[in-house]
């Protein structure tokens, strides 16, 4: 399922253009919904590999998705611990929209998306775009990313035992 979603992301990048103000990415939610038993180091390595794959096969600028996705993997476990409870995450129990609540899950998605987009938009603009443009781009992409991430998160976490 995770691999299929990465392929979907590659297809989205290649064939769906929603304008310069919106950047659709489901990679943060894929990393967020990885099982809690996966340690942070492994998660960061997975993020790096996924990022390279998407960069290589879709976007052209190699390193952009890696740069933005690795921080998401780095903060995933602390964010999960903060929102879903430390004991819960240390036991490696699965989490889901139903079990942990819509609000907490939404906050987790928004944090991961925001970190990813902030780094991505900053690196993509490379200091050449005005701050207002970057800010609007992050905000619009965050809203769109959140909307498409919710069903994907629901799908991925409902599989978790």
């Amino acid at each position: 399922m995770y691999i299929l979603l990465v392929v979907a992301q590659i297809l989205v990048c290649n064939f769906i253009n929603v304008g310069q103000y919106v950047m659709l990415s489901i990679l943060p939610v894929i990393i967020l919904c990885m099982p809690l038993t996966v340690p942070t180091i492994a998660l960061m390595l997975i993020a790096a590999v996924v990022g390279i794959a998407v960069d290589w096969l879709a976007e052209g600028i190699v390193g952009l998705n890696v740069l933005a996705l690795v921080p998401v993997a780095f903060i995933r476990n602390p964010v999960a611990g903060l929102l879903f409870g430390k004991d819960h995450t240390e036991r490696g129990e699965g989490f889901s929209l139903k079990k942990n609540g819509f609000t907490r899950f939404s906050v987790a998605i928004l944090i991961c998306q925001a970190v990813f987009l902030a780094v991505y938009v900053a690196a993509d603009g490379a200091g050449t775009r005005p701050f207002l443009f970057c800010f609007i781009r992050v905000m619009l992409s965050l809203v769109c990313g959140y909307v498409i991430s919710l069903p994907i998160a629901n799908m991925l976490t409902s599989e978790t035992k």
Partner: protein
Amino acid sequence: MRVNGNILGIGINAAVFILLEVAALIMLHHSGPLQNIWISKGMHAVYAAVWGGADDLKSYFSLKKQNKALAEENFRLSAMLCSYRGLTGVELSPDSIPDIYGGYRYMMASAIKVSNNRQHNYIVIDKGSEDGVRELSGIVTKDGVVGIVDAISRHYSYGRSFKNPDMVVSARIGREGPVGELMWDGISSNGAVLREIPQHIPVHRGDTVYTSGFSSIFPADIPLGTTGEATVVNGSTYNIEITLFTDFSSLRYVTVVDNVDRDEIRELEDRYAD
């Protein structure tokens, strides 16, 4: 034990994170032209911060040495003042000490940038035109000649360091010995060559070399260094190796010397030379 394990885990996670981010930045640096410039600018900013910090740290740790040198100089000046007071009976207050002495105006300055490792070295000092610095003023320390002011802005001056192949200082062996041209040897940090000393004049190793005062830039009798091995050139003159007193690598405080009559001397030279 568990706390230690947690800290170790966080440390390893952070290290892997930094490693992966650096790898991503390297990839970005090579794949996008805009990103290439952006990352290069960022790297330069980091280098500048690190070097600036290292320089501050170095100057902090050299304070003890600087203080010792200042204390010694203070002691020497106090001794001279006592002797002056004994001879003349006149009391000198700090305000009554003139900044012009012997036809030269003296001004304290701090070296804010010094290059040492090139063939053409330079020094930047924190005094400029608003402080009264003029082009072609000399830059000296108590240990010798440092350079000549080449360009000035309102608050800073750019000087050509003595460590330049085209910089020549008129120098004398001893206070009344023969005069020659002193130049940087182009190799070592404190090595110079004194040229055109007539062969018939005996030269001894370890003699002190002073500025001759024959240029209109530097006053006479500033100690520059000591003589070393002499070699005969063209069968008529000596080239003498000189070990300079100035330690260019630890320059902090310098004195700007400006010949107040320089323009008049130059005008006279221009009119009657040839």
